[in-house]
């Protein structure tokens, strides 16, 4: 395929993916917005008013970046996992496989589509948060970079999950048993300074801690960890997962007999 044809095929993939999550917006866009509104009301308003400040910032403002990041992570991941697995299940993945589209375009199409949903939900949650608190964006470029990189990383993760999945249960195991605990324990609701030293050290191996804190630094200007290292770590994970997913796709893992 020449460059123009590659761009057309990539655009087609992205449009298809975006169209899918927009078509089922009551399942993809509304529930995360409602869930996050509940978090703002209960943790931010009701409980937060008793917690007081954290690092000199109101508890409501403190949890906003973490909750936005949580939405981005779970939505990017689950969008690609469920979309690609549905394509496998309905065999419409064969439409792509019989076409001359290279595998990296297929992967990129799903990943961009997943990131688009993650970022879209993240934007909705940000808008909702503005009804509860005021946000000063300290480092806009860094904020944007972290959220986009995180969305891409978890989209690729969702793709790997869907490639390996044999039944619908297999695409919900990782989000429920891995992503949710790691996100909750990744400093969304608290600063790791509050933890005993042992648990602080344990928390440091949680990759989501770095993303949440880098994002919080971009918005609020405060972080529990060095932000530079977090960015490098996310970038390394993106590259590693990208090549893993592409290698699996080239081998036909989970899609070719």
């Amino acid at each position, binding site marked *: 395929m020449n460059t123009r044809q590659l761009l057309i*095929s990539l*655009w087609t993939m992205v449009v*298809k993916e975006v169209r899918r999550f927009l078509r089922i917006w009551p399942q993809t866009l509304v529930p995360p917005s409602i869930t996050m509104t509940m978090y703002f009301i209960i943790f931010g308003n009701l409980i937060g008013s008793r917690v007081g400040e954290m690092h000199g910032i109101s508890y409501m403002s403190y949890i906003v970046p973490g909750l936005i990041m949580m939405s981005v992570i779970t939505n990017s991941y689950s969008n690609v996992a469920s979309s690609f697995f549905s394509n496998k299940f309905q*065999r419409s993945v*064969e439409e792509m496989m019989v076409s*001359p*589209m290279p595998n990296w375009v297929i992967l990129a199409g799903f990943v961009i589509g997943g990131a688009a949903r993650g970022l879209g939900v993240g934007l909705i949650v940000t808008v909702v948060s503005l009804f509860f608190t005021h946000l000063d964006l300290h480092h806009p470029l860094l904020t944007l970079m972290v959220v986009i990189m995180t969305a891409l990383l978890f989209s690729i993760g969702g793709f790997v999950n869907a490639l390996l999945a044999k039944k619908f249960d297999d695409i919900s195991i990782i989000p429920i048993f891995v992503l949710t605990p790691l996100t909750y324990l990744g400093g969304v609701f608290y600063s790791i300074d509050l933890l005993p030293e042992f648990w602080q050290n344990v928390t440091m191996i949680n990759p989501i801690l770095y993303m949440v804190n880098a994002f919080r630094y971009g918005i609020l200007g405060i972080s529990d960890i060095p932000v530079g290292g977090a960015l490098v770590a996310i970038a390394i994970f993106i590259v590693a997962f990208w090549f893993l997913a592409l290698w699996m796709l080239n081998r*036909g893992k989970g899609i070719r*007999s």
Partner: protein
Amino acid sequence: MAEPALSIRGLTKVYGNGFEALKGIDLDVAQGDFFALLGPNGAGKSTTLGIVCSLVQKTAGQVKILGIDIDQDFAKAKYALGVVPQEFNFSQFEKVEDIILTQAGYYGMPMKEARPRCERLLKDLGLWDKRNGAARMLSGGMKRRLMIARALIHRPRLLILDEPTAGVDIELRRSMWEYMRRINEEEGTSIILTTHYLEEAESLCRNIAIINRGEIIKNTSMRGLLTELDTETFLLDLAEPLETAPLVKGFEIERVDSHQLALSVRKGTDLNDAFQQLTEQGVRVLSMRNRANRLEELFVSMTSQPEAATGIDKQPETSPQAKETAS
């Protein structure tokens, strides 16, 4: 000489569980041909076609589509290929038009070129009125036509139809035959057809291969194959009931029921002779028809025999090129 639309040499497939689905088959389909690939369930048809269109990974062998080796440049080969699979394999929730336009996009086709082509295909296949509806709302026959439209959107030179009329009513099946004939004859699209309706293969295809237990057991022209049929059996509907079968010299005759006889006629035998003998015995025949499709009789006889005892000429048509490749 033009490259074959499809050339297969020594194609082998062994699945992970050790099952050998293809045992080194050779096959050529000429450009412009309407070719039938027949075989019982599990014979290796879908595995063969799956390898050709990249849905199945081959174990060994060579596949060329219009002279392009799929191991060398599969992307280029795929431009020449259109596939209508056996199972519905589109998103049931997408709109009919979107399914076809998305497929065009996968081939890098610009929208301004894809839209009119899509409109033409949907109109030709009677789906234009359904273009804005979700694919899941279509009937079975419409879904099959949708897959044909999708396979043709990028103007493939080789079209693979894997049981395209399965579950389609007779009237619709015949209109689909007409359409397939048209794209083969008018547009020169080479077509490979697998079907369980042997009447369909006999009516449409000029050449045929029969695959059984992972081996090509016959590869010849349809006409040539049908001439191999030694005996045809006709069912005769009688005006009056008969208690026993009449004796008809030179023919095998069997009483099916009181109003029907089965008359077996060897190739080259004068049928008038049988009717004359029946008339002399006062047997009045109201109508007659073939007991089974002629191709069906051959197919059953070929594929039902034990592997070792078939005695059927196995691939005499194998070309010298195939031997070179195999060595």
